[in-house]
């Protein structure tokens, strides 16, 4: 027997009222509260400020767990000599090829090549400078990978 999905959340059968609005502190807490539209006692909409909602916070947290794993994987790949530091810094700055292409002006095809350690070794200073600028680091930090 399959239960109707909403049976699991009886509280949500009733519309969210002002007093039901979650106030779970999250990443925004020291920054701002956010406007939410809720029903007041007269059944009319009004705005209330919320400190956050746990469901949202968890979604954001799980995204960051993933980001940090990707960065760590990239770091290991550079140490193993499989990828150039460009790959690591791209992940570190939450970029993908499209975004990096925008910041450097290089086509994706070339960026993928520059991620090979052998190609990276012979990159001109000029190109390295463009990457360094995109990543907000110095050329030396890019060249000498400290992990």
């Amino acid at each position: 027997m399959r239960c109707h999905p909403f049976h699991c959340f009886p509280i949500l059968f009733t519309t969210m009222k002002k007093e039901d609005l979650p106030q779970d502190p999250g990443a925004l807490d020291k920054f701002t509260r956010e406007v939410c539209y809720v029903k007041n006692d007269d059944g009319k909409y009004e705005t209330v400020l919320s400190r956050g909602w746990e469901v949202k916070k968890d979604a954001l947290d799980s995204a960051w767990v993933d980001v940090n794993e990707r960065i760590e994987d990239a770091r290991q790949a550079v140490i193993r000599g499989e990828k150039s530091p460009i790959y690591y810094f791209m992940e570190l700055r939450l970029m993908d090829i499209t975004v990096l292409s925008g910041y450097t002006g290089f086509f994706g095809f070339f960026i993928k090549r520059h991620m090979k350690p052998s190609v990276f070794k012979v990159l001109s200073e000029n190109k390295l400078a463009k990457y360094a600028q995109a990543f907000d680091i110095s050329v030396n930090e890019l060249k000498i990978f400290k992990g």
Partner: protein
Amino acid sequence: MIQDSQIDAFHHVQTAHCENGVTTALLRYHGLEFMTEPLAFGMGSGLFYIQIPFLTVNNGPAISFRTMPGAIFNRTCKSLGVEVKRKKFSNQLAAQDFLEKKINEGVPVGCQVGVFHLTYFPKEYRFHFNAHNLIVYGVEDGKYMVSDPVMEDVTTLSREDLTRVRFAQGPLAPKGHIYYPEKVGVISDDLIRKGIVKGINRNVRDMLRIPGNFAGVDGIRHTANHIRKWRDKLGLKKASLYLGQIVRMQEEIGTGGGGFRFLYGAFLEEAAAYLQDERVAVISEDFTKAGDMWRASAIKMAGIYKGRLTEQKDFEDVADMLVDIRGVEKDAFQKLAKLNLCK
């Protein structure tokens, strides 16, 4: 000093969503005191749903719960006969000079920016997202005075920081995009009513009659069908992350909760008062229900990305919930269509 009086005249408006906020604050500044966030959102036909095919954003599905960036401002202004000026730049210096000139003239302007380098945002929210909007309304001690609609208070940005976010790169790169109302005519109640009706009818069209199966109410079912396959196709871990991405899009700062559905409910409530039409207020309830259902689905999805729920059945449940939401929204828009509002 003329500039000071202009700065005094600009009032920061905090809203759920940035583009609504920029629209509301700029129009109010130009004398349209009646403008509210729900009204701007509804006249701009802001409610939408789309899962953009073949595109991934931040390594997840590209889903949006609202219409395309820039449309709300454009449509709302156009409905009210407000002439809009927009400009994009290839040259950063030209973009700086133009902004400087407008600010010196005492004109608050809307700017499209990327959030990755937005210094006053908390780090956790700074992904490469380029369709954020804010208002620059003055300059003080060499810093730009910024009214960001999602914030409780105004803030500032240095010249360099502002240029940097105005020239963020990647999808939807802002290219220094700047916009502001240029000419505002006389606005009668009749014009407002017409704008509301037009906004509703266009939203009905976008949600019910848009071609393809990945947008409008059918888009919700499209995503539901994907969700049923994600666990087998992507593995539990990636499938969970994808659900997290849906919730982030739906409940991100700037939605007012419920994937903009509560906001649309609030709009219909206001619309009912303008149109003197109780039927519109009744349909508002349907959107409140849809908003509640979106939030319920987010709770279920959270169970999965928190690792509490792991079975295929849980994914099926989420998909079923989305199919139910599609039903409610389709029904609500059909009711709106049947009202035959024309004024």
